[in-house]
């Protein structure tokens, strides 16, 4: 099992009730990690998936997670 710091924003923070959490997971990508998290926080299911960042860099949903990363899940953005 790997360890991640997951950060939640905006609608995701409202759905999980958390701004940040430490997560144990075998997920190999942000995509897999988000799917796992949705099981723990069913309210996430009502919101679309949008962008993801790893260690403050925009990243792909299929990027490789080695463990130890800070993973930022962004709900659909709405700037402007």
């Amino acid at each position, binding site marked *: 099992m790997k360890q991640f710091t997951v950060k939640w924003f*905006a609608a995701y923070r409202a759905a999980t009730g958390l701004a940040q959490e430490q997560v144990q997971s075998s997920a190999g990508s942000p995509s897999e990690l988000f799917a796992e998290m949705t099981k723990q926080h069913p309210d996430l299911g009502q919101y679309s998936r949008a962008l993801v960042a790893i260690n403050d860099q925009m990243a792909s949903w299929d990027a490789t997670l080695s463990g130890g990363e800070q993973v930022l899940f962004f709900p659909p953005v*709405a700037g402007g």
Partner: protein
Amino acid sequence: MTHPELNTPTPPSSTGYFAISSESLNRKALRASLQDVSSGAFVLFEGWVRDHNEGRKVLQLEYEVYEPLAITEGNLILQEARERFAISLAAAVHRQGLLKLTEPAVLVGVSAAHRGAAFDACRYIIDDVKARLPIWKREHYADGTTEWVNCKVKD
């Protein structure tokens, strides 16, 4: 892991800057920073707060910004615009926090020798600012409820 260096707004560079502001946006300062005697064209985009959305009356608006990434990604968008279009200077600033209906949410300004490049670059920047930056909008409605805009899975 913290990135304290990313929490400091990138200082205005010689070719423009992206910034996040908790205060009312200053159009005059933005324009002054883009003034350039070799430029014949200036295009300014302003995002205004609408008083209705999908039939509901909006009283005020709230922007949440993940500032470290918004600033680096915003400056990257400006850099891309300068590489793709023949412009002189470009800058953009986005609000965070609570906005009244009459306040602009975002300003994008571009100066260029000729107007075609200024229009194209300004549009490129605002399109990408809206699509790529970690910024979220919460509307506060007249009935007392609030909602994060555009987040729900579409039926």
